[in-house]
């Protein structure tokens, strides 16, 4: 390709990125003053095997 061809490719790429970015901004603009982010992942407890009887005991907890 000639230098002009490369320039056209570069312009097309920049235009594409701009269009995608603009659309992204347009459609994803925050609709609220604050956005909540989640806390770091906590480590799950490791279950321990038990040999208790298979029954439920009602209680408020």
């Amino acid at each position: 390709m000639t230098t002009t061809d490369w320039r056209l490719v570069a312009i097309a790429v920049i235009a594409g990125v701009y269009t995608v970015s603009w659309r992204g901004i347009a459609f994803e603009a925050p609709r609220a003053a604050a956005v909540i982010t989640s806390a770091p992942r906590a480590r799950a407890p490791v279950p321990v095997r038990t040999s208790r009887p298979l029954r439920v005991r009602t209680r408020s907890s």
Partner: protein
Amino acid sequence: MWTFRAMGTEITVAAPALAGSAEEHLATRVAELFADTERRFSRFRHDSELSVLNASAGSVTVSAELARLLAVARAHVAWTDGLFDPAIGGALEAAGYDRPFETGRLDRGTPAHPAPARFADVHFDESARVVVRPAHVRIDLAGFLKGRTVDRAAALAPAPAMIDAGGDARLVGDGPGGRGWPVDVEDPADARRVLLTLHVHDRAVATSAPNRRSWRTGDSIAHHLIDPRTGAPASSDLAQVTAIADTAERADVLAKVVFLLGRDAGASWLVEHGAAGVLVGCDGRVEVVGGVERA
């Protein structure tokens, strides 16, 4: 059978038809689910999404899962005519329940009196996931989140299983021997005694009682069952309500509302809503309501 601790209680997972390794794998997945849910929605963790929402001012965009929880909570408010209301977070803190029980006794002097709060005061746009919380409203999801998490955990089980979160339990299948899962109804006046045993097939149970989550405030006893109509710990002629319903989430809400309504109105209301249960009065009288199979 496997156990672990989460949400301030002991969780039990059992799937007797599964091989040991498969049952352990299920228990591990359930533990991860509980840990993740607690991390995101506990009011006792300052970094949880719920705590961030409760500390926010102005409009806030919440995660899809919190938006779903708030939408479900709003539905519970509607069908219970406001007897279930997640806006009791401030009332719980004012009554003294401002930290987990594991950290020590909650006893304190004179309780504070918070401004009345209703979930209806919160502006919530579910589709946009935007919440505008008035400053006096603090949301607590514990009233149904544990039951909901039990239901989600049960959905992970590939075979009949028991998921029991401190008495909020989902019992999938017909239980060992096909006679139903045995459920011992504890005596609220003496935790060593069992009042009666039920057999439960493919349903869920949940219990509300003030006996295990209570503390002293000045000269009186406070507990965690807040009446949204007053913003104070509820007075009831019931000492304990065990509700039996299709899901643990619904059973949890039913048990709380029946406790608030009291014995007569509560028993009628439970039947009207197609559920069953065991009501234990403060006088010790036990009443079995709806379709319950006794052992």
